[in-house]
């Protein structure tokens, strides 16, 4: 039995009258990529924001790397955040800083105990990993969408997190760049041995990166399993519909 | 930008800012003489006229200290504690006194130390000054107010005087208001002028007569060659002639004068507030004018009489008769033409 790094039980979250999450159960095992599939506005992003402590759950148990997020101190939360990396949908790079400064940021202000040389070494390593060594002195505004995503991932993995949370990693990118990002996700998994939750509505991404796939429909997980299991012929009409919109050609499964 | 360079710039910015602030503090301190040794002194005033903490203390027009605090003393007034620079101490003597004045006409209240005799020795720390009272601005204003009242009273009197002149009271008033009096004066002047013309005519005739007297054939010459009578007669005629012309001038002047006087007086009367009315409200002047008129009148009468007498004197009777005949002839010739 593999280790569980994230354990969520019966999670509820609502914003006013809008009930987003209605009793979610989720387990993330060590070293796996879990893809959470769902339409826009179904609360996928809310789920991972709860996991990294950006949003507080209304009800339910959230256990991440042994920390109970309902009873966590500030110091513990900070420690947890160094273990959990979050890649934002729009990269969220700091506009006023160079790429180097962006990647250095968590090392400099969160880890704090590294020398300038160590930091440079780490920055070079992740930039090499994402294949953008030449952009070190550039500002985010000078980069393309795909490059920004890569730098966003680089900034996340620079602190060697145990868990990576990807929020729509391929949203807004062209298909070729999408594939590159998917490859990068897999490469990061192999190289940095991190467990990941990938939030997406892109089935290609799900298929290429996901060890397991969970489909979030109406605030609950409709089905969990590997890609083939989820999208088999017994799938519900909603899952089928979801699949059909992504792959116009049905032969794929 | 290089972070070291940025840090240096920020440090420089802060440093200069602090230097400016420190400069401000030092300048104020030097003005307030914060870092100068001082001695304290005391004075008790009935009224401090708005003196407050921080006001300056002057000695011979030089700032030597500042007011430190004020406190009330029941029944006595206000105790003013002030400080004097130690270096000025040697010039201020024990019997010097203090008063409250102002820096300029509308400036802050100041404490002024003045007087003092070297024989009394210099003041010491804690010296209690005796006070002297200076005319405050309030006093000045009070005096000004009194002056105003006096001026008001004077102008009121003037107004009344002018009013009474205007209504014909008093000599001047009568003179100005009484039409008949003015007419009389005017008439007299007219007469005076007519008389003067007559005198001129007469003098001319006399002159002609005189010339004829020079004819050695004529009796008059004979007469005139008399060395004693003739020069006298000549000088009499000359004086008569000049007397007549000056009399004529006088008459002309007198007319102008009267007219001017009239217009002036009219002006004065019409302007009731003129202080000039006071000057001419003088009975002596009116009397004097009247008597002058009388003298002029009697003068002309006497002149007429003299001329009449001259016509009848044996010396001139023939001349006048001849003159009468010549005139008749001339009139006839004129008629025949």
């Amino acid at each position, binding site marked *: 039995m593999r280790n569980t790094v994230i354990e969520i039980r019966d999670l509820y979250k609502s914003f006013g009258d809008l009930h987003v999450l209605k009793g979610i159960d989720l387990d993330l095992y060590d070293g796996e990529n879990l893809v959470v599939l769902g339409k826009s506005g179904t609360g996928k992003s809310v789920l991972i924001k709860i996991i990294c402590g950006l949003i507080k759950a209304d009800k339910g148990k959230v256990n991440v790397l042994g920390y109970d997020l309902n009873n966590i101190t500030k110091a513990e939360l900070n420690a947890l955040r160094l273990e959990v990396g*979050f890649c934002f949908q729009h990269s969220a790079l700091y506009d006023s800083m160079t790429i180097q400064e962006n990647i250095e940021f968590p090392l400099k202000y969160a880890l704090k105990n590294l020398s300038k040389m160590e930091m440079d070494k780490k920055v070079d390593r992740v930039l090499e990993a994402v294949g953008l060594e030449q952009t070190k002195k550039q500002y985010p505004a000078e980069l393309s969408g795909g490059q920004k995503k890569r730098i966003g991932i680089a900034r996340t993995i620079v602190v060697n997190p145990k868990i990576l949370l990807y929020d729509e990693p391929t949203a807004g990118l062209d298909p070729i760049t999408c594939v590159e990002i998917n490859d990068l996700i897999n490469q990061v998994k192999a190289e940095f041995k991190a467990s990941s939750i990938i939030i997406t509505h892109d089935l290609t991404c799900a298929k290429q990166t996901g060890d397991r796939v969970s489909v979030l429909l109406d605030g609950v997980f409709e089905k969990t399993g590997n890609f083939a299991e989820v999208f088999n012929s017994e799938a519900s009409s909603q899952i089928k519909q979801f699949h059909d919109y992504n792959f116009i050609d049905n032969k794929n499964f | 930008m290089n972070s070291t360079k*940025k840090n240096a710039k920020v440090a420089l910015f*802060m440093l200069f800012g602090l230097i400016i*602030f420190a400069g401000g503090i030092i300048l*104020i301190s030097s003005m307030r003489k914060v870092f100068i040794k001082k001695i304290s002194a005391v004075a008790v005033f009935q009224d401090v006229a708005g003196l407050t903490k921080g006001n300056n203390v002057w000695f011979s027009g030089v700032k030597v200290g500042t007011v430190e605090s004020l406190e009330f003393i029941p029944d006595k007034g206000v105790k003013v504690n002030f400080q004097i620079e130690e270096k000025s101490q040697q010039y201020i003597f024990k019997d010097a006194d203090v008063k409250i004045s102002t820096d300029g006409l509308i400036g802050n209240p100041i404490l002024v130390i003045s007087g003092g005799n070297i024989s009394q020795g210099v003041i010491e720390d804690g010296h209690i000054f005796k006070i002297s009272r200076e005319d405050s601005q309030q006093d000045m204003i009070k005096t000004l107010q009194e002056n105003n009242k006096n001026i008001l009273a004077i102008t009121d009197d003037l107004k009344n005087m002018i009013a009474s002149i205007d209504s014909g009271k008093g000599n001047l008033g009568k003179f100005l208001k009484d039409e008949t009096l003015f007419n009389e004066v005017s008439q007299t002047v007219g007469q005076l002028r007519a008389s003067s013309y007559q005198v001129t005519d007469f003098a001319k005739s006399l002159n002609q007569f005189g010339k004829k007297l020079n004819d050695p054939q004529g009796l008059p010459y004979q007469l005139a060659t008399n060395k004693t009578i003739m020069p006298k007669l000549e000088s009499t005629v000359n004086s008569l002639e000049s007397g007549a012309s000056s009399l004529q001038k006088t008459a002309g002047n007198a007319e102008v004068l009267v007219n001017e006087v009239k217009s002036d007086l009219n002006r004065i009367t019409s302007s009731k507030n003129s202080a000039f009315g006071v000057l001419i409200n003088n009975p002596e002047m009116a009397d004097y004018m009247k008597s002058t008129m009388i003298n002029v009148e009697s003068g002309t009468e006497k002149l007429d009489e003299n001329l009449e007498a001259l016509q009848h004197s044996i010396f001139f009777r023939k001349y006048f008769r001849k003159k009468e005949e010549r005139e008749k002839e001339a009139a006839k010739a004129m008629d025949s033409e």
Partner: protein
Amino acid sequence: MLKKPPGKRENFISEKIDRQLLDFKSGVDFVILFFKEFSFKTLVWSEFVHQCYQIGLKSLGLISLTGFVTGLVFTQQSRPSLLDFGAESWLPSLVSIAIVRALAALVTAIIAAGKVGSNIGAELGSMRVTEQIDAMEVSAVRPFNFLVITRVLACTISIPILSFYTAAVALAGSFINVYVNEQTNLRAFLFDAFDSITFLDLGSSLIKAILFGFTIGMVSCYSGYNASKGTIGVGKAANTSVVRSIFLIFIIEIFVVQVTNSFR
């Protein structure tokens, strides 16, 4: 549980006023949070210095120009009134009192509110909208410490320093005007100018400038930090920063003048 009686008002006063009250409350909470979180130990010095550079040095040119013109024009415009009393020799003291007691801090604060306030509001607003603040938070860096405390502190320190510059430059402007018109030399000018200024004036001006700086920093950071989503939110944050800062600057001015006068 009791049911709400029908027709009972949903709002405390009205929706708009309730929103304003809640906004005010969250503003007060924001200030309280600042004092709770502030500590020199956790202060991010490099960011603080960077902000001092941005807020202080980068505003220096603008502030200097404004200060110079203020001194020059104020002197020029005051002259006729004093001339009526034949008291143009009082110009240095009049101008210095006006500059030190009120103008230096006020002019600096208003210019800074416009320049620095809108800058901070827009910067933090766009950071909020593009999730950069969230990114900081998940990087285990407290964005409040990193963004808000450094900026507020930089404003609180830089604006008083800028106001000293303004005062110095304004006095220089005034001196030039007085020198050209009355041929007063610098020594006499400084003597007249500083003779009428007290430590109370200088102190109250300093306190005022510190309060102005703190207010500009706090208001701008609050507006930007709590910007709503979207580009409209960024513009609104910048606008709110300036408007509220200037409004509060005048309120503070009134209060400080009242308090200072009670010491006179």
